[in-house]
């Protein structure tokens, strides 16, 4: 791995600024990876890493990634929620990097919900 410097960041900045001005405001998709100690211990960070790499490789600029704390569903973790603008949120359970890549390509990019991994549909309160 070549050592990155702040100089490399300058190039990225130019690119991101150009993209943001084209996109104007709202992102099309919001993806939430649920963390908390049990989530982290069961691989939530690796799921997040896989998602970030997919976004990077695809060059998509309309996806927002967030994390949230534990929801008390520790045994089903890692959990990921996908919200596409104008559609009900979909919550996926027992995620891993491979399933995340599949959900990214098929659901987030192509719009097909990956039913076998779905835990729940619709909004709910979490903390």
């Amino acid at each position, binding site marked *: 791995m070549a050592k990155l410097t702040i100089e490399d960041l300058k190039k*990225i900045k130019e690119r991101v600024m150009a993209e943001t001005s084209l996109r104007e405001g709202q992102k099309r998709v919001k993806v939430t990876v649920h963390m908390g100690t049990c989530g982290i*211990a069961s691989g939530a960070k690796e799921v997040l890493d896989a998602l970030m790499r997919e976004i990077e490789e695809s060059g998509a600029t309309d996806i927002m990634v967030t994390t949230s704390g534990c929801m008390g569903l520790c045994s089903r973790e890692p959990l990921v929620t996908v919200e596409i603008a104008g559609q009900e949120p979909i919550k996926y359970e027992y995620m891993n990097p491979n399933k995340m890549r599949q959900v990214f390509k098929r659901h987030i990019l192509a719009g097909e919900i990956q039913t076998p991994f779905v835990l729940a549909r619709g909004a709910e309160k979490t903390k």
Partner: protein
Amino acid sequence: MIELAHHILDIGENSLRAGAKNILIEVKEDETNGFLVMEITDDGYGMTEKELKRALDPFYTTKKVRSVGLGLPMLAEAAERTGGSFHLESKPGKGTKVTARMGLKHLDRQPLGDVGGALTALIIASPTTRFIYRHISGKGAFEMDTEKIEKEVEGLPLNEPEILNFIREYVNSHVKELSPEV
């Protein structure tokens, strides 16, 4: 936890939940004494003496969604298992400092792992918090300060995927050079 980076993410999340605006994460490789020291300092709301005493009890948590709190006991155990030690300091209204000392060469010590990824996960969790990561080894020192990155990108939010991917590789490439075997 498989990597120390997982603990960094987990302990950092405690700090965020405590409302910290500034979080300093330090990893020091002390080859002379054979220790790897991990220290996380925050300016969150802290703990009272009573809370502090209970913090290492796995059945203590202030979370509402469940009844166990495992983050701190797991790190304490990971440190003690390697012939090291664990220390927790906290003042209400001031903040908290978590120190884990691990046996550098101990077989049970978890590898440092993807620190850059842990930091980006924390930035995603709270893009407006200032995170400083400092790494010191016999080979030199490295510091990543999100406030400096913010200045550099002039108002772009740090949670843009391209900026996050930069931060991850920026940190990991420097850490790898300073601590290739850790």
